[in-house]
């Protein structure tokens, strides 16, 4: 199964890389700081893996490691999205005055 799916995964990786480069290149310079914190939050998607490891409750070690991983990821998600929105609020309000 791993090998079987390998090429699908490589395909997804290749396409995602293209999407990533195109999307990021279009982000206005004005917003590069929010961009950093937003991608931050998005890459905390590692939470998915952490949840499964913790949830399976296979053995103490994996539970411990998983729980820490969940904590770390959730921290990134929460702080990442909140701070991005906090920064963007400032820009948002400027729009009309532009």
């Amino acid at each position, binding site marked *: 199964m*791993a090998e079987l799916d390998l090429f699908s*995964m490589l395909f*997804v*990786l290749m396409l995602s*890389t293209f*999407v*990533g*480069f195109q*999307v*990021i290149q*279009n*982000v206005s*310079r*004005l*917003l*590069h*700081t929010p*961009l950093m914190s*937003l*991608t931050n*939050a*998005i*890459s*905390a*998607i*590692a*939470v*998915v*893996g*952490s*949840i499964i*490891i*913790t*949830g*399976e*409750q296979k053995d103490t070690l994996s539970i411990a490691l*998983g729980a*820490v*991983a*969940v*904590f*770390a990821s*959730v*921290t*990134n*998600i*929460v*702080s*990442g*999205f*909140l*701070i991005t929105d906090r920064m*963007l*609020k*400032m*820009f948002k*309000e*400027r*729009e009309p005055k*532009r």
Partner: protein
Amino acid sequence: MNHSLGDVVTQLSYLLAAALFIFSLRWLNRPNTARRGVIAGVAGMSAAILGTLLHPEIVASGYLWIAGAALVGIAVGIPLSRVPLTAVPQRTAISHAFGGLAAGLVGTAKYMLWLHDGSLTAFRVGVIAIEVILGYLTFTGSLMAAGKLQEVIPTRPITYPGQNYINLGLLGIALVAGIGLMLDPTRSFLFPVIVGLSLLFGVLLIIPIGGADMPTVISLLNSYAGLSAVAMGFVLENKLLITAGALDGASGFILSVIMCRAMNRSFTNVLFGAFGQVQVAAAVGEAKPVKSASAQDAADYLGNASRVVIVPGYGMAVAQAQHRVKEIYEELTKRGVDVKFAIHPVAGRMPGHMNVLLAEAEIPYGALVEMDEINPEMPQTDVTLVVGANDVVNPAARSDKGSPIYGMPIIDADKSRMVLANKRSMNPGFAGIDNALYTADNTLMVFGDAKAVLGDIANALRHESKAAA
């Protein structure tokens, strides 16, 4: 293999999440759609998490653990999102550290689990090794970077002979250990070796890099964090992780490239150039007389100018002086003075730093002009007000081949008819080098903390206009 219904829902939620993440970044391209981008991001993350919680393997007690860990995460995350804008680089570094840590831990746990139920394949070991190496080196590396930015660790690069060889050697050993483990997954003693070396490598990687390069390094670590998420995706055969990781990786890479270009430096120079060593050496320059002026004088010059350009820099961020800048901007525009802000791509400590601060002070971003557009106008500028900017207005970058920032494009403040430069002392900026602009004939220094000094200037302007009225 057929999917259970729950499984189908999970897969669909991942598909949806991936699409939402892409939209999230697409909408970030313009300020007026940017906040929609955040909403899409949150929606995507929620979809992904809910989909994952449906996972059949998750047992009842598991949910408790997850909830507990999540609550702690929320408790830590909220304050972390309230840091002052000047501390954003450190915060970013720390969250990269967390991201790397999560990746490393998941990889470790997966290895252990698969080792016990004997389902380790060479492929699995390989991707786990990559995930773990990237994850842990991002973890320690980012912590080091955060320390240097917070200046709890000496920002000066620490170098010793053969340093790069030693570092690369360590990484090499880790990789070899990884290969050894692929050949025989049961050689479990190799795993701790890989982990240890990665952690160590992260530290040693940052030690020789000067504080001024930390923002670039952070962005680079950003893309490492993304890549470790990609690797995790290969381990867990989860395409959402691959997509999200790739997006993150691309963003970190592009931002660091932009910064390197704006500093006219190469990646290798940033990573191995030990930039910033020269600090002491350079600081000892011959002392040319410095002309300084009071806030009152500065206000008069500004008030009587018809074209003013304000060049903000890291100092404005440190002093949180953006609101005073706003006051000056308003006073001057009231009098019909044409005021523009010259934004250097690497002014401050992260890309777009100045834009955020000035936006916070509610300065319409129509007034912000990028370096390339403003430079041609500098000779027609009556007064240039430099607020805590240094390297980005250092003429040495144009003229002095020997200077470490030679070739870095700068804002030609020195070409304007007159320069008012505010900073606290004659100390160098982050690049640690002297700045001939401050001793130029058409320059007047206005010493003091930016917030205080600009406040005085704003008041002086206000009184004058009152008097006039």
